């Protein structure tokens, strides 16, 4: 399938998908195109969105592709959409989430050990908000549940994948700068 044919098809598929659409999903839907074709078409499409100064952008998030508004237009959108009811995460929840994001999969006792305080209520919040998910059990006494971040975590924090998080060494610099 030619690039020019592929682009609008991918655009509509991404548009209708409620969740970020992966290249794999797209390839399954379009037997006519290879994954490589799709990757190239997406790169072109993304560039086009940027070049024409659209208020929307095609972006890679949580391992998939999504059309979303550009952050710089949030002022007008907030006026209209009355901003999504965004219960903010507490500092405790954010810190616990940070530990889980970097140390996953991790058990509750291990989180306690790192944070120095009980984190159960923070973990409960994170589970409720589907930011973390159980990922099996650790093969040790008590077989405690291992937790890791979810796809929803990537979506809510605008991350392409976990490698998009800065390394702990980079964080060191961040600490130094403050």
């Amino acid at each position, binding site marked *: 399938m030619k690039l020019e044919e592929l682009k609008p098809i991918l655009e509509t598929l991404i*548009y*209708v998908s*409620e969740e970020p659409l992966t290249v794999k999903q797209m390839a399954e839907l379009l037997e006519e195109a290879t994954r490589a074709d799709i990757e190239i078409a997406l790169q072109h499409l993304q560039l086009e969105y940027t070049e024409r100064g659209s208020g929307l952008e095609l972006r890679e998030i949580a391992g998939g592709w*999504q*059309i*979303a*508004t*550009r*952050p710089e*237009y*949030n002022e007008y*959108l*907030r006026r209209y*959409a009355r*901003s*999504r009811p*965004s219960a903010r*995460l507490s*500092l*405790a929840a*954010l*810190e616990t*989430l*940070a*530990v889980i*994001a*970097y140390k996953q999969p991790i058990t509750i006792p291990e989180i306690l050990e*790192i*944070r*120095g*305080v*009980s984190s159960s209520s923070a973990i409960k919040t994170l*589970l409720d908000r*589907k930011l973390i*998910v*159980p990922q099996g059990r650790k093969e040790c006494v008590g077989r405690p549940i291992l937790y890791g971040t*979810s796809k929803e975590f990537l979506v*809510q*924090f*605008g*991350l392409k994948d976990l490698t998009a*998080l*800065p390394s*702990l060494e980079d*964080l*060191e610099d*961040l*600490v130094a700068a*403050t």
Partner: protein
Amino acid sequence: MPSRQFFNPKMTSPTTRNAIEPAALRPEDNPARDYKIKLEAFEGPLDLLLHLIKRHEIDIYDIPMARVTAEYLAYIQTMRELDIDLAGEFLVMAATLIHIKSRMLLPVDPETKGENGEILDDPRADLVRQLLEHQRYKAAAQLLWSKHEVEQGVFTRPPLDQSENAEISATVFDLLETFKKIVERRRERIEIEIAREEMTQAQKMAEIRTLLAENRSVNATKLFENARSKREMVCIFLAILELLKETVIIFRQERTFGDILIERAVPTRGDRPEPTEATEVTE
């Protein structure tokens, strides 16, 4: 953690400590109220320690244990005076600090000295590692917060399908929560049913007593026939059994296979039933 970053703990020798501690015990002239506001912001003991280290611009790799311990204890003391609920972790850390401090007063074992005279098993090593790690995760939390803020300004297409029969995207914990709710709901349902049945049985007993107060005998078969549900039949049956037990009623059958009649029990001399509620009705 490279051990060369730890230095000889000479500066916490008794003389130095004495010079620092009195000041540390009253770290500021701030009234106690100022503490309260600050203290509540501390997530835990590591947070409090980091705060103390930052405020005094202490080198995290060379923490003056005596001074920091004293300050830490002063905070804890203030928290107690203010009746702030002190998480157990704060006390555990206090004990740890005191322990490290006392270990640092011991002469350094020459065996544990490195080539350049640095201490290889600095008693503070674990604490420093913990503090550094904690600091990193605080930075990570900060970063996540800012990313989340940006994302709050990003909007996607609203759901196209807003049908009533919305489907839920479920995780294993949803399964567990759902199961727990069902179990609780079932328990409540059973309790309600038991309560309802007990009430009905009592009601049926009262009804039979009333009928017997008005009539000489009651046809048991008719009683059952008038029941509207299986449960009501069971209740009538249980009510009759109960009244029999209390010897409020007797059964009489005029001929074999005939209808069973319920009649008031006539208390015989020497075999008088207990003066129950039931006898009051029959009399």
